[in-house]
């Protein structure tokens, strides 16, 4: 059993809560293959009616930004206020912007 626990790969789970919204990351789980990962995700993450669609992705397939590169990656965007479209008058009729 301990071998199985080591061997089962990790999967990242994305759930779409309802039509019109996009899939969001909800967590991860272990499963022997993609079909079982989907079923496990259904049981672990949608048992209270949280979703209408599930994606599972092998965690190993995700390329993530490195915490060491955080400053170079993200800090330069922090003081570019002109990149935000905040200098426009928004008409009253436009909602949800």
């Amino acid at each position: 059993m301990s071998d199985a626990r080591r061997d089962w790969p990790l999967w990242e789970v994305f759930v779409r809560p309802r039509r019109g919204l996009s899939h969001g990351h909800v967590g991860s789980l272990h499963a022997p293959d993609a079909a079982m990962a989907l079923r496990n995700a259904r049981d672990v993450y949608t048992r209270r009616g949280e979703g209408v669609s599930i994606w599972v992705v092998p965690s190993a397939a995700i390329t993530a930004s490195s915490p060491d590169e955080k400053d170079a990656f993200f800090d330069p965007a922090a003081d570019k206020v002109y990149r935000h479209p905040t200098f426009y008058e928004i008409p009253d009729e436009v909602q949800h912007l």
Partner: protein
Amino acid sequence: MTAARALPSPARYALALGDDALVLAQRCGEWVTRAPQLEEDVALANIGLDLLGQARSLLTYAGDFAGRSEDDLAYLREERDFLNVQLVELENGDFAVSMARLLVFSSYQLELYRRLSGSRDATLAGVAAKAVKEVAYHRDHATEWVLRLGDGTPESSRRMQAGLEAVWPYVDELFATSSRHGDWPHPGLVAEGVAVDPSSLRDPAMSYVRSVLGEACLTEPTPRWTAQGGRQGVHSSAMGFLLAELQHLHRSHPGASW
């Protein structure tokens, strides 16, 4: 307690189907913290809770005929008044035994509920219609595991085949309408369109099971004996231990709640 034998036949029928669900729910619950993975703990707990929901509806309905609550029926009946098939009380064994049992039982139950959703008894029809989707998932879950274990490693294949051997003596009882202990269900109920003739479920249920076994490179066992009598309250030695665990809290602390 009103002995199950004294209940009118529609109540006995609902009770028997409810007891199947209740007892298998208890067996599924026993897997929690013991399954191969945390994810499987959750899956089997979900399946158990689906079955428990079915049991609550069916026991409530059966109890209405005799002025008894679902709790009275679940917690205060004696073993001889439980009408479940012996397949569901069979001890969990290893994971392969439990998956073999779940494959057979959910295949049976899916065909049963599909047919029962057209019952002339509106309550039974409603419970069955709601449960069809639940049981379809139970069958899918068992199927995925039987395929992987049967067509997996030599060790998993050997143990999956052993799981089938342990379960197969209990298969016939699902579809039996009579045994040396009596008839089931009451022939009048089938004629009235209230109950489903269990023998009519054998072909569709078992042809599905056989297709899974074939794909999983497993062999259908030929059991040397077959269980019988569950529908008449005759149970195996495993049943008393199961009921002790199921009932002891309620019996030790009557009326306790949280």
